[in-house]
């Protein structure tokens, strides 16, 4: 057992309101520089939709992530042989248009325009070329309603849905959607790190944050092709790649990352997980239907004395182990099993988990009118607006069992809380639903507490970073203790 610690995350999609505050918080801090205008380390996608960059989930085009070849795990995009034949050009790279051409507006024109018979307008200007452009797409074009029918209909997760299911999804004015906020998953088996020919990408030992060394990066861009989530970006100004750093300067000082901190819907949770690194490869090679369970089995019980001893032996700090014992992520992922990894079939073993959203049917069409049926709030999950198959494509490698389990449990908790607080639902029925959903009343209370009444301190259990230990590896803090200080400019003298 090779116990390591990983800062992991849970996004509760049932609570996301799609306000994009997280994206803006991140943008203002990290990607407001020249060359990064088009980057959104944090972005919020509308599902169904094609996302950012367009159809990033389609690995037939982008060749991101891993595949199992003759029992060996290999990157889809590159390899020793492929890299020689593609040494001058990396195939499978999103173009600027697949992200979007960043723009601003010519606001000065509103003030400087010569007098005329019309109101002056602020026309869009490309932030890359500085020239006037026609905006064709944006980082969240679906949400901007800039072309939703085209983009929504081309969501890769719609694969395998029956015509009836599609009809069910798009029944009411084609306007059903949920939100899917994305940041770097800080994967356990990161494709970007494996692909980098310069060794610029690395996964930090102490907390598993995946970082890109700007001094080592040589701009090969193999990471961009290899990351199936397309969360490494190329800065066209510096010629180096960049990615989400999980706001490590904030995390090291005990603060939640900016996108977590600013989240209005309180959907984001952050905490430490202890995992068994010796089984990583074995798990990453499992067949698709066993991947979710396999990844879960990597996560170790932080209260198990054997795990604690192994962690200590591996140099994991006691404070980190304590932090892991209180981790909200551990509860959602391992104890309650309601949070699931996105597209685990890419085999990077992402460490960002999603609680799948409920989508009760609130209205249906009657001729040309839309009839509302709000009384059915506690719907049957099988007939939800978003088909199970769609969520399974997103969170279960196409297999519905884990998604169904998570949704069933969420629904049972709702019934149980309704019976408890309002009382218009029969308690015995609620209890039976809990049992059927593999849930106890205590667990239901826990889920309810952490979902609905969670404060900052409940959502973010951030381990002390112990930077002093890291620094001491390279520098002796006592080196200059008896050295020469600044001293006096004119020394003090005894007497008058």
């Amino acid at each position: 057992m090779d116990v390591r610690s990983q800062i992991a995350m849970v996004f509760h999609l049932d609570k996301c309101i799609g306000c994009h505050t997280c994206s803006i918080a991140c943008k203002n801090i990290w990607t407001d520089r020249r060359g990064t205008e088009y980057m959104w380390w944090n972005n919020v996608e509308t599902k169904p939709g094609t996302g950012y960059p367009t159809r990033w989930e389609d690995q037939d085009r982008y060749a991101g992530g891993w595949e199992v070849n003759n029992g060996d795990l290999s990157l889809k995009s590159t390899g020793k042989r492929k890299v020689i034949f593609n040494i001058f050009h990396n195939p499978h790279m999103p173009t600027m248009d697949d992200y979007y051409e960043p723009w601003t507006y010519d606001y000065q024109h509103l003030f400087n325009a010569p007098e005329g018979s019309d109101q002056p307008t602020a026309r869009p200007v490309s932030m890359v070329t500085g020239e006037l452009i026609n905006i064709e797409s944006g980082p969240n074009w679906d949400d901007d309603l800039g072309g939703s029918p085209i983009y929504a209909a081309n969501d890769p997760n719609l694969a395998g849905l029956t015509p009836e299911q599609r009809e069910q999804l798009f029944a009411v004015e084609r306007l059903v959607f949920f939100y899917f906020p994305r940041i770097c998953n800080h994967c356990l088996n990161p494709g970007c790190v494996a692909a980098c020919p310069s060794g610029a990408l690395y996964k930090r030992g102490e907390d598993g944050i995946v970082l890109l060394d700007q001094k080592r990066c040589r701009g090969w861009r193999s990471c961009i092709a290899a990351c199936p989530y397309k969360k490494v970006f190329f800065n066209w100004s510096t010629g180096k790649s960049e990615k989400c750093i999980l706001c490590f300067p904030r995390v090291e000082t005990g603060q939640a990352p900016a996108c977590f901190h600013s989240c209005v819907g309180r959907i984001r949770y952050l905490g430490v997980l202890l995992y068994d690194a010796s089984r990583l490869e074995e798990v990453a090679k499992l067949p698709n239907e066993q991947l979710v369970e396999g990844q879960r089995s990597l996560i170790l019980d932080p209260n198990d004395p054997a795990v604690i001893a192994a962690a200590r032996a591996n140099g994991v700090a006691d404070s980190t182990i304590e932090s892991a014992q209180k981790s909200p992520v551990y509860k959602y992922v391992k104890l309650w099993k309601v949070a699931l990894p996105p597209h685990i079939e890419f085999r990077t073993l992402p460490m960002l988990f999603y609680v799948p959203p409920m989508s009760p049917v609130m209205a249906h069409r009657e001729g040309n009118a839309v009839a509302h049926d709000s009384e059915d709030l506690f719907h049957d999950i099988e007939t939800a607006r978003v088909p199970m198959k769609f969520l399974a494509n997103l969170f279960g490698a196409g297999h519905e069992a884990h998604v169904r389990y998570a949704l069933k449990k969420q629904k049972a908790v709702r019934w149980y809380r309704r019976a408890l607080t309002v009382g218009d639902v029969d308690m015995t029925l609620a209890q039976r639903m809990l049992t059927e959903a593999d849930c106890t009343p205590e667990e239901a209370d826990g889920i309810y507490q952490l979902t609905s009444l969670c404060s900052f301190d409940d959502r973010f259990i951030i381990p002390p970073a112990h930077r002093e230990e890291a620094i001491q590896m390279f520098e002796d803090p006592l080196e200059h203790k008896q050295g020469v200080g600044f001293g006096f400019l004119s020394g003090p003298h005894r007497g008058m």
Partner: protein
Amino acid sequence: MNPLTHSFRNQRTAGLLSTAFRFLLAFAVLVLLLALAAPAQAQDAATFFKQNCSSCHTIGAGRLAGPDLKNVHTRRDRAWLKQFVPNPRAMIDRGDPYVLKLLQSANGVVMPPPQGLTESRLNEILDFIEAESKAGRIWGGGGLSDRPYTAADFVLGRALFSGEKPLAKGGPACISCHTVGTLGSFGGGRLAPAPQYDLTRVYERLGGRKALGSWLSAPPTPTMNAIFKQHPIEPTEAFALLSVVEDAAASSGEADAVPLLNFFLIGLGGAVAGLVIFGTVWRGRFRSVRRALVRGELQRGSASLTTGGER
């Protein structure tokens, strides 16, 4: 003295010594190299004449590309000769009437200045020619058969010219720098300076089979001399090559511009074919996702778009 400083001094002295030693060594190597180079100058006038003059001149065996040098000392004085030989071009430019007459008789071919000619060497050579003329000994002019060319000669010549059959002593094939009119659609090389690259009329320029054969035995021009000094052309090879040149002179005009155009057209066709092949092999390559998707949807008339909402 502080022991530390002392040992430091010692180290420095040792360093200086080793630098001096290295200089000595370098000097010794230099001297050795010069000594090795010296014997090259020690060849006698006869050898020099054979290697550098005999390709165009004979003593008493008649005219080749250049005039017979027998009794040249009676025709021109020593001072004139010493002015002419190292730099023939300068005399032509100056308009010396005798040189212009020579040029005419040589079909306009200017004598290339001999390589490695010093003043003392020139004196030795002129002495040599004078002595040999007086003694009546004949130098040069032989070695090449007079028999008529056969078909086999011609086949061998073509193979040698094009490099299909390498020259015995390892010299480069003619085609790398020269062309002749009979070479076919691609023509040959054009590296040699104009008009020499085209060998179609070389027969006329250098004055027939005998002159050209002698010329080939030790090509005197700076570029060819440098190459073929080490890798001479064998007499049988020269004979075969002459058959090609003679055939070209007899049967066709100048190597014209058609081969160049052919070359360009075939190159263009090849490039286009290459692009088509690559474009076909990699037609599924990554181009653009979003733009292609939107365009595809719009082209499909987007049934889904129009039947979707009533708005």
